[in-house]
């Protein structure tokens, strides 16, 4: 077992985690943050994407002990405390960029990391960043549209 302290969605926490536990299992089973989805369980599909210190990671391919002294963002922490959705969430809604929704939290967090690094990404950059997220039902055009819309909304809202 390993003692870890970390910040998840702005809340400081500490825990004692099994050294072979994945971050995905820890978030889902111990913190009940079930927006982190497990699908391929091999770091390929991107459904379990969360942000660790702002970088996208596959929570299913990360040990829970690795988050010690890190800041974690999951889909549950994205909306404002008053319930207003984040611009990326709004853009996904407006663009109909999901159908069953299973992959959506991973896509949204990948887009958040992308737009923090590239506020106005070209299509090639969007494709490169999102090629590690797989959607089985919507197709990718609406997700590309949502990413472009989110970029525009966030740039417009920027001071």
């Amino acid at each position: 077992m390993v003692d870890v302290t970390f910040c998840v969605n702005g809340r400081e926490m500490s825990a004692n985690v099994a050294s072979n536990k994945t971050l995905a299992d820890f978030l889902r089973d111990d913190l009940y943050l079930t927006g982190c989805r497990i699908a391929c369980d091999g770091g390929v599909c991107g459904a379990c994407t969360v942000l660790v210190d702002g970088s996208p990671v596959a929570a299913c391919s990360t040990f829970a002990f690795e988050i010690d002294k890190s800041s974690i963002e999951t889909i549950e922490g994205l909306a404002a405390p008053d319930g207003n959705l984040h611009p990326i969430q709004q853009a996904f809604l407006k663009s109909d960029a999901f159908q069953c929704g299973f992959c959506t939290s991973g896509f949204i967090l990948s887009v958040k990391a992308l737009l923090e690094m590239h506020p106005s990404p070209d299509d090639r950059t969007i494709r490169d960043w999102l090629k590690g997220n797989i959607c089985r039902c919507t197709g990718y055009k609406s997700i590309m549209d949502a990413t472009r819309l989110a970029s525009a909304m966030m740039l417009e809202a920027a001071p």
Partner: protein
Amino acid sequence: MALFAASAGAASYMSGGIDLINRMKSGCTIDDVIHLGAIPDRRSIDLSGDYLSLGAGVTHDAIAKSGLIRDCAPSLCDAWSPVANIRVRMKGTVGGNLMARDLSYDFPIVAIALGATFEFVTATSGLKQIGAEDLDQIEKSDLLTRIRIPGIAMQSMTLELGWKPHLAFALSFLHEGNYVRRIRLSAGSGFDRFCCSNIHLDTPLTATSIQARWSEFADRLVSDLPTPAEDWKATANYRRRLLMTLVGRKLAVLSAQGAGSNG
């Protein structure tokens, strides 16, 4: 290394951890995981003379974005920018990629194509240095510290990953001014082991000369490799013919673009 030696069961070093966690999920039992994250200097990228020196903990993303590498070996940055996906690039390390010794992984064929050497600290003999082609001589307890690529400014390379799992290969060119002195082909995926072949040109060639002989060069490079793997995905003969076609296309395109230039 003392922790590794003291382990009563199976121990493993952990760099980015992506390969390790997937191996554990596949049933591989690891009793002690030794996290290398706190070791200083594992993430440095240096240019010493004509040697590019990469710490074993350098991430794939760091290679793709390194200004230092972009200045001396832009083709390496270009080849490495689209590998895997952004999550793997940001977390995965070149050391982990090499030490996994997985034929489907990409950095070993790049290291072989560029003639890299690996530096290890070993439990028995202290420091050890091996060539990239001798990857299978590594002991599990050996701790990879650095990867050194000689003559980096005189080399250019290209990577073909689009046909995995049937094939993946890297092609490198050793330049001498506007001439090419050596062409090297390395492969992993689609073979039973990492392998490479070379064409040493006694009379250095310009890009135009290579373009005129791309078919001959592709034939020679592929013929000098061992027989490809034969499995349910493809026959050895299919892989050999596919490789010859793909290498030929790369040579034709690169020479048309000016393979004589490493910029």
